[in-house]
């Protein structure tokens, strides 16, 4: 199963409500994924780089990790713990910081890197995960969230969605991929770094790699339709955009709705039913293999 929600604001009217509305949507998808949950919120872009880190050990020393990264990068690092996560800000290169942390701080998982994305996840009741990381209090331009019923890999915090491997890019997935091992090896050879055994992380890495090579979000998803084998409904976020795609036989559910103020997607309509103005929304089921994307100009 698994439940997906995505909310992309077309106007600024609702930006202070983004987290609250996303939390309402996530709540409706609890039954589809009671194992674990996660969300990514895109806020106002910051000047430096922002990384969200996870530690599944109790004894992590965030301050020491910050200091070691500062020394390695030669750039200032600020680190703010929140539950078993920490938000790390640096004036240095974000992607280099991610690579350094993966290589040198095995006790942490790098959940996201970028200028606007913040990504949090946890095991257990999706509502408690949302509460723990104050989803409802967050503002921004767009958000995607996921409730997980695990099939392809263990129920762990790191194995929860969304997955993010490239700057400000993340993905949530309902379904399962069958060629993720081969694809992971191929991507690793070309420099992608993965932190879990999860099939969906490979899809995130695939899109991030394509976009790093110059693809637009739509081009990357177009290529994914050829290269990814399996069942999927994806919701994808980038700094400026939001996209939804389903596999060629539409194995996994999806419904979309659009008003003048927002575009929303979910596994089931009842999540969208919570949004303001939904009574005037255009509602449709995304077609198989068709890419639906929205973006604002940078």
């Amino acid at each position, binding site marked *: 199963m698994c439940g997906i929600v995505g909310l992309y604001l077309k106007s600024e009217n609702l930006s202070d409500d983004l987290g609250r509305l996303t939390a309402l949507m996530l709540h409706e998808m609890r039954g589809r994924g009671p194992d674990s949950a996660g969300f990514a919120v895109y806020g106002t872009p910051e000047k430096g780089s922002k990384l969200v880190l996870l530690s599944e050990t109790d004894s992590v020393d965030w301050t020491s990790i910050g200091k070691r990264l500062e020394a390695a990068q030669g750039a200032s690092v600020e680190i703010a713990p929140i539950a078993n996560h920490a938000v790390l800000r640096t004036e240095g290169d974000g992607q280099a910081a991610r690579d350094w942390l993966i290589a040198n701080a095995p006790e942490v998982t790098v959940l996201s890197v970028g200028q606007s994305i913040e990504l949090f996840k946890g095991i257990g009741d999706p509502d408690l995960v949302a509460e723990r990381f104050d989803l409802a209090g967050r503002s921004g331009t767009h958000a995607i969230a996921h409730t997980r019923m695990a099939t392809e890999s263990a129920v762990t915090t790191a194995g929860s969605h969304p997955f993010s491997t490239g700057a400000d890019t993340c993905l949530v997935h309902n379904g399962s991929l069958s060629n993720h091992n081969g694809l992971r090896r191929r991507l690793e050879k070309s420099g992608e770094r993965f932190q879990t055994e999860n099939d969906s992380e490979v899809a995130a890495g695939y899109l991030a790699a394509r976009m790093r090579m110059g693809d637009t979000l739509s081009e990357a998803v177009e290529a994914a339709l050829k290269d990814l084998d399996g069942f999927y409904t994806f919701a994808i976020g980038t700094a400026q955009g939001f996209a939804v795609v389903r596999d060629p*036989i*539409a194995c996994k*559910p999806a*419904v979309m709705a659009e008003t003048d103020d927002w575009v929303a997607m979910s596994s*089931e*309509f*009842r*999540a*969208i*039913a*919570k949004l303001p103005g939904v009574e005037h929304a255009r*509602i*449709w*089921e995304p*077609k*198989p293999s068709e890419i639906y994307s929205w973006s604002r100009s940078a």
Partner: protein
Amino acid sequence: MSVKTLSNTALDLSTLSVREVNRILHAAEDGAFTVLHPNGAHALACGLNAPIDVSIQGHAGYYCAGMNKAASVTIDGTAGTGLAENIMSGTVRVTGDASQSAGASGHGGLVVIEGDASARCGISMKGVDIVVGGSVGHMSAFMAQSGILAVLGDAGEALGDSIYEAHLYVRGKVAGLGADCVEKEMRPEHIAELRALLDRAGYPDVDATTFRRYGSARTLYHFHVDNVGTY
């Protein structure tokens, strides 16, 4: 309160649970009911067993009006996966679109989808009649056994794959026919059959002669002596 006396009763899902609403509908022997604020709830008006009228004002979730018998259910909105699944008799109508597997395995009755139906519409239909005002998605009428599927718009890939004896009529384009599904001649009895169905479904102005007919080539389900060595 005797449920028999209920008529034009509003059942509001913002105060009642789906189970409470369904219990009231199951207990009724006649009358008309309006269901308010469905907000995509699943299994609404499932298992009805009496000639009651139910009007659902808004969007329904999965399996709406499943297993319907005798009742007339109208959804003023869209419907999720499995609309009127296993319908036995009566009528289920949706004014908007329906998601996957609408009318799946239906044994009788009538399903009308005024908008589009997505993939697998009429999958394994066993006697239900389905009329779609818009288009249907891929794999529609997969393994359809009997009944009629009439599509006023287009049909997606693999229409009628592995079909038995259902009658398929499509007015628009067919993206592709499934295994053992072929186009067939539209004879007068087929025009008459389709005409009667379109009238029943509320499409009196749609010209039955503008449809094309598809059905089984009957090569898959009849044993062929050339295959004797295969088994």
